[in-house]
């Protein structure tokens, strides 16, 4: 493999890993935030017969 091939492999490995990790992390965060909101809603529904509960989280922000 030429020097350029190693340069491409080096950059692709690092930047690709960076991008995949960031995307996976944001997806994990959104999923867990939805799960927490659902648990809060269930707990609120069980304690509050009127059905009042916290609004679900909208996303990563």
């Amino acid at each position, binding site marked *: 493999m030429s020097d350029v091939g190693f340069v491409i492999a*080096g950059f692709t490995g690092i930047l690709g890993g960076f991008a995949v990790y*960031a995307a996976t992390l944001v997806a994990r965060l959104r999923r867990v935030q939805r799960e927490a909101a659902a648990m809060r809603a269930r707990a609120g529904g069980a304690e509050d017969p009127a059905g009042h509960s916290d609004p679900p989280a909208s996303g990563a922000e």
Partner: protein
Amino acid sequence: MKTRILGFVALAGIVAGTLVSLFVVPADVNQGDAQRIMYPHVASAWLAYLSGGVTALAGVGWLWKRDLRFDAVAVSAAELGALFTAFAIWGGSMWGRPVWGTFWQWEDPRMATTALLLALFIGYLLLRRLSDDPARRATRAAVVGLIAAADIPIVHYSVDWWRGLHQSATFGSPDKLLHPAAPVAFVLTLVGMLTAFTLGWLYLIIRRYQLARTELQIEEMARQGQLAAARRRAQAGAGLPSGTDGIRTDRPGMDAPGPREALP
């Protein structure tokens, strides 16, 4: 919203840094194009050090204050530490093959101690899976975090303390920083890449910390849910009036969060 802006700024910086590294700065006279890998490689190594330092400091914060927010910072930094140590090793190997003629050499102190650092970060993350008790998990992890941090100066100074394949630091002292051996264009590109990667690291650690805090809240809600279900079963079984459930709450993992393990 501010975190999202930080993410976009970091992304723009990394894209710009990559384009400059690949297409703008000239190739090194001796190393040729392979030298371009140094820009993300050095940035990754710096962030591996930073992650290790933050993991250790946050671990000390947990041991001192017993506040689980410190543990959330520690696990976030450790995960990024594993990631950036792996990036540094990958970049170094891709540079080493054309320049040194080998991807890896176990006899080299820098490479061996960096591999040890990666193993410590992975061990830190695996150790956390052994316990469901947040306080016990945080204490064990803090100890491993401190051991990982102790390896960082050994990694950094290994090139000065022992003879090996890896060269000494290009900017390892104030004198080298003021009078760098590399051309100014190389130095500026490296500083730009370091800045962009650090902004990216900052974005990732904020998101990872948010994830760790939310996971803690879910764990606590699940624990409270199990406790409430146990109380209902006990009341139904013993015919106790509401509020006198007869369930002990002084066992580890059954009590509400107190000052020793305050939830974020």
